[in-house]
């Protein structure tokens, strides 16, 4: 542990030195820079100029994506949400195997970002009545929340609201529209 930390410090120090060295190096007017392979032989007295990427820490690919999520505004996050909706059959609030898979992925994200608070919105298609659909949308949202809670997500982070059929995602009047409108929709409200 101690050794590793020392190594990290040393590495950082040498990087800093290299950067400092590079910054101090005066511009050398040379009509034709030699090919890289011959650099060492033509200027043996000078340390090699550090490659450009060294100036910024090289970060692994995975954290870059995470940073994009972590740094996005709530609106940007919700506009292209990493939390995917769960879709339901007509008159049903049963979570399908496909819905369970979506909820598993959503649960993973909620565990990775423990500060997130979300609202689960329940939505319905236009075939049911406006009145009953409020309660059906509620039941869909509750079903999604129950699944997430079973995956270890705290219920305190999961607010619920039903919009019935008041806010269709697809304004169409066919089954493809209906299928998009029967959903539990996830909105990130705090991060």
């Amino acid at each position, binding site marked *: 542990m101690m050794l590793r930390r020392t190594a990290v410090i040393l590495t950082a120090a040498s990087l800093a030195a290299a950067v400092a060295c590079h910054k101090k190096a005066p511009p050398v007017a040379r009509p034709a820079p030699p090919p890289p392979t011959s650099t060492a032989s033509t200027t043996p007295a000078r340390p090699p100029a550090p490659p450009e990427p060294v100036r910024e820490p090289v970060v692994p690919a995975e954290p870059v994506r995470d940073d994009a999520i972590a740094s996005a505004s709530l609106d940007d996050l919700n506009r292209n949400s990493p939390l995917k909706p769960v879709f339901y059959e007509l*008159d049903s609030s049963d979570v399908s195997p496909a819905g369970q898979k979506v909820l598993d992925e959503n649960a993973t994200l909620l565990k990775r970002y423990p500060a997130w608070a979300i609202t689960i919105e329940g939505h319905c298609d236009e*075939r049911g*009545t406006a009145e*009953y659909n*409020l*309660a059906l949308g*509620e*039941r869909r949202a*509750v079903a999604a929340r129950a699944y997430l809670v079973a995956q270890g997500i705290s219920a305190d982070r999961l607010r619920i609201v039903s919009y019935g059929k008041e806010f269709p995602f697809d304004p169409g009047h066919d089954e493809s529209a209906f299928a998009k409108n029967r959903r539990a929709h996830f909105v990130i409200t705090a991060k």
Partner: protein
Amino acid sequence: MKHSILAGMIAAAALVGWPRAQQPPPQPPPTTQQPSEIGATIGGEAGGPPRLAVPDFIALSTDAETVAIAKILGQVLWDDLNFEHEFAFIPRDVYASIPKATSFADVPFDRWRELNADGLVVGTVQKVDAGIRVEVRLLNVRTRQSAFGKEYTGSAAANPRRYAHMVSDDLHLSQRALHGVAQTRLTFVSDRDGERMKNTVQKRDVKEIYIADYDGERQTRVTVNGTLNVFPRWSPDGRSIAYTSYGKGTPQILISNIFQATREEVTRGNDENWLAAWSPDGTKLCIASPREGRGYTNLYVINRDGSGLRKLTNHPSINTSPTWSPSGTQIAFSSDRTGNPQVYVIGADGVGQAQRITTSESYADKATWSPAPYNEIAYTARTGPGNDIKVIDMATREVRQLTFGEGSNESPAFAPNGRHIAFTSTRAGKKQIFTIARTGKDLKQLTRSGNNEQPDWSAK
């Protein structure tokens, strides 16, 4: 004997220029006129409805405004009377050749008798200091006696139609013992303003509560909170509207007192509450709430001031869409305890088992209980890809259907005399408010701008 309704008419004047107000100003406290003669009724021949003619009202003043009002009054009165089908009417083009009277004194009774008219509604409009004076008589063409006569005075600039509505209701009451609905109003939900919800990345339309006269005229916005406002319900006294608002994120029951320009919170907090229905005495509301969690929704009764919440239904299913019986002793609602929603009835005290009412539907919701003398429940039924309006007679349990797959039809609401139903239909494209007679005849479209839905009909 005359009474002025000036104050009321002036108040109504403000309504015209009030498209965005949180609250519309008061309507006139109605009926300040008195019968000028002893009433009598005019009957039709062979027991049929009386045959009436409603010629244009007579302008006793020659100014353009009075002449215009006289024309409007005759037309609106004709429409108001025709709405209830209590009278037969001689078509207007038939009597175009009959000389126009200039006063009550020179009515050409002989000519009207030739057309087999039983009665003649004659009205005069005169400009007076306070505004206008409207005098209306129903004349028996055979006896030349007045069977009905009243005077109405007040301001006219705001809403001359209201005079005709008052005359219509007075005529129906005196001649047919019928409580007309010409002065009643509708409330409904509309997205016509094209506003979008804020604080959401989705494109979501703001929906606000509107009111209109029973004939669809004078459509006026009530709420201005820029969010989702749904399921408005008139209080029994016609002075308040309870509705479900998402203004604070969680749906709650609010009451808009449209004459006082005040708003009350019936429910608040983190629990969702929907679909308020007034008790007939106006002291309580029945609401639906999923507050117990687990996806169950049950009915609760709460005082209008938000106190005294008690659970009415207690069933591990969805129990929603309440409507009170006219006596206030029962509540009809929807429950999906056996699968899809069906209409049930339970005592307003919550005691006893809920009794299932709809037995021949795959899906039935939004019961609305008719006023006396009918004892019917109208509801929305799934009939195919869409829904239709049906009515069940509570005595015989016979079901009749009012709409037949023209678009999708839902959210029925009875007129206060039970003779018409307002509902939402997509038959014209977007969602619009229609009225239809309880017989299934006389379909009328009332709204055309944006989407309009979830109507409720005022009792007064």
